[in-house]
């Protein structure tokens, strides 16, 4: 930013005059965002306060009944919302724990290898997301890869059935799906970090653990925060994973939401969606200082 404004001061007046015209460039995207993002969100909010007797009735009365239902209903929706958040927190933490050393490994590789390894991390994105989720049922299932391997090596005689269709498998798949984001975000911060800081810390008597906690980790916090934005929030909105591998115990808020939308309970569905959206927005506002969205440009 600073660089840009500095330059703006030095450049010729003719360039200066061109600047206000640039603002028109914002117009198309801003229009699209308003018409196809803000207005729909506003209508969603309005629908959440509408009640109609018939399915999909547009005529109805204003009500807060949907919100009452979200927050009461024996606390079920609220509890599932909290459960969803907790699972997303656990999955994000797991992504960071598993992904951090992985990113470290890549950042430590030679220049030549780094680009190869990064490409390899991103490659799975080019394979169908749905099929990658689905493939996990063939890995974790009773006759899946893991159980067959365990049986082949004589470790178990009965298949481990706790691997699939529960919160565990749900989190495994979340980690699988989102770990590339964490790895890339942390790799980017590691890459930006001055390597001599690590040497300096060791030189000053910090053990590897101390060096990591006091120097490396604080330096890569932007990557950690970016993981929250690009891992935690998308997991809150995951529908496919709980549906395909979550089983009974892995029901998340999105499943209830989609059930309602499928039943054309737009009012109630919108209320659930709006509660989620509010939570996400508050989180983003809270993180605003830590994750400077503008800095994503530079990254």
């Amino acid at each position, binding site marked *: 930013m600073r660089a840009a404004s500095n330059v703006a001061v030095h450049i010729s007046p003719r360039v200066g005059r061109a600047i206000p015209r640039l603002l028109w460039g914002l117009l198309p995207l801003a229009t699209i965002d308003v018409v196809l993002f803000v207005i729909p969100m506003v209508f969603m909010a309005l629908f959440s306060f509408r009640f109609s007797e018939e399915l999909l009735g547009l005529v109805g009365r204003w009500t807060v009944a949907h919100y009452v239902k979200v927050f009461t209903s*024996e606390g079920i929706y609220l509890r599932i919302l909290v459960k969803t958040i907790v699972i997303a927190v656990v999955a994000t933490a797991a992504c960071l724990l598993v992904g951090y050393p992985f990113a470290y490994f890549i950042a430590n590789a030679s220049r030549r290898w780094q680009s190869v390894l990064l490409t390899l991390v991103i490659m799975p994105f080019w394979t169908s997301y749905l099929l990658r989720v689905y493939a996990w049922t063939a890995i974790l299932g009773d006759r899946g890869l893991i159980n067959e391997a365990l049986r082949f090596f004589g470790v178990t005689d009965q298949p481990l059935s706790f691997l699939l269709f529960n919160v565990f498998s749900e989190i495994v798949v979340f980690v699988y799906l989102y770990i590339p984001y964490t790895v*890339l975000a942390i790799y980017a911060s590691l890459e930006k970090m001055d390597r001599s800081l690590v040497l300096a810390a060791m030189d000053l008597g910090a053990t590897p653990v101390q060096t990591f906690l006091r120097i490396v980790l604080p330096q890569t916090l932007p990557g950690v925060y970016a993981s929250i934005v690009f891992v935690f929030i998308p997991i809150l909105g995951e529908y496919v994973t709980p549906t395909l591998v979550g*089983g009974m115990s892995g029901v998340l808020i999105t499943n209830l939401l989609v059930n309602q939308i*499928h039943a054309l309970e737009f009012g109630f569905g919108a209320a659930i969606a709006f509660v989620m959206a509010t939570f996400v927005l508050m989180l983003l506002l809270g993180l605003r200082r830590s994750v400077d969205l503008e800095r994503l440009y530079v990254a």
Partner: protein
Amino acid sequence: MKDGHTAVQSLAQELREGQLTRREFFRTCARLGIGVMAASSVLRTLGGGTASAAALPGPLNILVWDDHFDEPELKDFVATTGVKVNTSLFDENADAYAKTKLVGGRQIDVVSGDALWGPRYYQSGLVDPLDLSQFTSAKELFPVFREISFWKVGTRSIMFPWSWAPIIPYYDPRYVTPFDSYEALFDPKYRRRIVMEKTPVDIMAQMGLVSGAKKPYQMTASEVKAAKEALIRLKPNILTFVEQSNQFVQYFVNGSAWIIANAHTGLDYRVKQAGGPLVKPVYPKEGYVGFLDGEMVVKNAAHRDAAMAWLDHKNQAKYVVLNFQKQLRALANEKAMKILQQDPKYADLVHATGYDQPDVALRMILKGPPPGEGLKMYIDAFNEAIAR
């Protein structure tokens, strides 16, 4: 989402280092554009959208269960009429009803539905009854299915009948002791061993049967509450919900499921065909639900002619035979049954699935929509139970 980002940046760098000039770029773009156009035209041809044979306006939009059609008849239909068919699949009657209500004939020409859902569609003004005598293939139906009272509107029928079957539990006798009551499903030793089809209204109805409701599709609020309690009780034993019954076979074959609580008849044969165990059906003493389904033509369907042609086309005995061989459950087409009876491979199955006893179909507790606010009540109860 920085994912692509970095990769792409490296690509960008290569581009930069590659000194890609603007002219080269445009030339490449132009080539790419031509390539894409060529590819899409090839794909269009392959996709069967050959406009030359178009006798009827299309495309035909059908909202169906996946076991109501097969590739061969789709392909033949496209070949003979030139009409492209868009197929959307759905999970449950309530879904299809909601969707039809949402977008109507503009987007859906034909919709599949179950027994008592038909009258609901008609009452809501969503479908046009059919004059079955207009269809050549309707002459192949068992007479009872041409005259189903609750589908009758004057001389016309709301639905073109397709198939029927009881919906009952199946179990793998290697792990499960034989039972005759839904109560057995609640046995703690079957923890995480039961798989169910995800049809919230029908599951609630089944739970209604468990908890003693007389009319499982017309439960009162307190009966719904009891059914919900039953589902909550059953929850620990449920491994997962699946969409439609094809996955039942897989779960029996790979040993994940010991009981499948709501499958239509014929599952045992399909499991055996796929190399699985010899699973056994149970006709619970509390009673059981059954489906009797067919297709309806949506009111003001944008491609009504194509819809009629499609119904006549796909209900021909030759396709029904293929469908039976794949799905192994009773259908409404009598001619197809007779063909199958001639085939030693399928003769027994025709009897075992009840295909030769069409009157059984009307004695089951038929699927239907809960009246009025009931639907919302059923879905809420289901949601609340699984979310608990």
